[in-house]
């Protein structure tokens, strides 16, 4: 585990764990509905050809977010390369 960053700063291939989603507005609630909440593991899968948006994998599915949304997600990087655990 290392220091916290926002999800948009994480390079491709990295695993992270969500610390918190900033704000308490409809966007934060939508991200929560999509499974982006404290403790959830996310893998940064790939970026679009033009650099944005990015595909993430969480809760066994792939979600595509723009930087404007992923910048609100505070995460800590996980030192692992193979997926383990329930989520």
């Amino acid at each position, binding site marked *: 585990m290392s220091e916290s960053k926002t999800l948009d700063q994480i390079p491709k291939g990295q695993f992270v764990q969500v610390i918190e989603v900033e704000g308490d*507005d*409809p*966007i934060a*609630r*939508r*991200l*929560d*509905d*999509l*499974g982006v*909440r*404290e403790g959830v593991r996310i893998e940064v899968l*790939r*970026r*679009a*050809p*033009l*650099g*944005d*948006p990015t*595909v993430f*994998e*969480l*809760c*066994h*599915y*792939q*979600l*595509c*977010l*723009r930087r*404007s*949304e992923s910048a609100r997600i505070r995460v800590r990087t996980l030192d692992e390369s193979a997926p383990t655990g*329930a*989520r």
Partner: protein
Amino acid sequence: MTSPAIQTDSVAFQVFGLLGSPNAGKTTLFNALTGLRAKVGNYPGVTVERREGEIALENSRALLIDLPGTYGLTPISADEAVVNEVLAGHAEGVSKPDALVVVVDACSLPRSLPFIGEILREGTPICIVLTMLDELTARGGSLDFERLKASLGVPVVGVVGHKGRGIDALRRLLGDPAGWSRPSVLPPEDRAERAGWADSIAATVIETSPARHPLTERVDQIVLHPVWGSLLFLVVMVIFFQLIFSWASPAMDAIDSAIAALAGLARTALPAGWIADLVADGLVAGVGSVVIFLPQIVILFALLYLLEDLGYMARAAFVVDRLMGRIGLEGRSFVALLSSYACAVPGIMATRTIPSPRDRLVTILVAPLMTCSARLPVYALLISAFVPQRSVWGPIGLQGLVLLGLYVSGAVAALVVAAIFKRTLVPGDSLPFTMELPTYRWPTLRLWLSQVAGSAWAFIRRAGTIILAASIILWVLLNFPKVEIPDGLDGNAASAYALEHSAAGRLGHAIEPVIAPLGFDWKIGVGLIASLAAREILVATLAQVYATGGEEGDSLRQALRRDRNPETGELIFTPATVAALLVFFVFALQCTSTLAIMRRETNSWRWPAFAFSYLFALAYAASLLTHRVVTALGASDWLS
């Protein structure tokens, strides 16, 4: 507005609501249960599509309402609030569901569990339908049904919708909603606590987590590759456009000839006179103007649903999202705008794949700016008549450059207007861009065909009637009142005389003061009025006004070049006027079919009226500016 199509005697029926997240397989399940007999409409006040269908149960029939796909019960826009309104029984003309069928993708169960908890708290009886079980197995995942039933306290059924597996069990379950088990304790109200509740259920229910779908993983390495993915996107879009643009033309030509033959048949069968004219030129031609769209619409939806069902549409949106994001739209708007290059009618219908209703509305409003194929005959006539056939640089000719310029102007205008509308017309858009990348799936033929047929039928029923009415009204305007043709006039001259004294001819004279600043005279005015039916009709109408008979050959071009103002003796089609007319056609919404389809897709006359007004204002202003600038530059030396 309530659609009369969805009036159902709700008293005798058990009403089920079909609820679930997008991509969970709701549509497949809906079709499997209702046998494709869906009634499609709109929810009152919003552009959200509403589908209801009857389901045959063992001893009774029930009504199934397909609710818009959602990830939660906290709406973040008026359009999303539809789900809550229906659940509360507040949606006008929609029955309150007695029980809910909650569709859950078995592969992403952990994500859906908090949503299920939220629904359980609403108090309506629910049953869970787990879909994508075949995919779960393919990804090496498994879960314990009995434990899921026990921990949620509600019935759970697994189905593979496209193979029909589990549908009978679900049907039996729907026959007796009163017997559904209910949870003894409701999930926590607090979001964070509910997430904990969901996690503990997931931990007991999921035996093996699904790995990544192996095929999807392999395909995406190419399809979403920075270089290959972009190339593939371009290739798919070129093929897509090419198919709508050119594959449709043989069928459209065939329909054209069939309509002409039918009109001829009507003329020989009926005694000559205005009734024969009405049937041949009004009715038959009017029906033809509806049917002519079908080839493009069928091809468009065949491709659109194929790409959507395969899972490519989301990938295409992903690849191009950054570009569209700059103007405030998202990737899926691109496909609709591209389709509008062929024709705005299928283009506007293609906006159905855009999940955000605001993005969808903006895309609908700017779609008519994309240079549709109906503008081409107008551009071709004016360019061939007035732009010299001169090489600018090697094989690149002036005529081609002017045509390219017109195409580019339309596209640039569409993007600029979209950016402005997104900021002003539908501001406060807090909808984030969140898109699920579904697993690749083979579409089932039956579902695919039914979607295409459904869309074609919806076009005929909802827009076709308006198009038919509009073309008959225009026919009346162009042919009535009948006047005595003076002696000595016959053939083309007589029909030109009749047109000048028709209601449309008089309207052309009446609007002359308005269009005079653009350099247009009453004859162009008549052409503009007639082209409201479809832009290319300008050519035929000018041919009639100029009494040149046919649209073919040089005669019309020469007549246009020679025409002078009877009072001043000046040329009518000066370079400034030609340029202004071309620019007018770049912007103006001269198309009742587009207005009709806008009415159908937005469920209100407000938006077509707005689109017509703003595009007319834009056309007028740009046309006026062009006329002034070209006149000031004295550009007569490079044209003519």
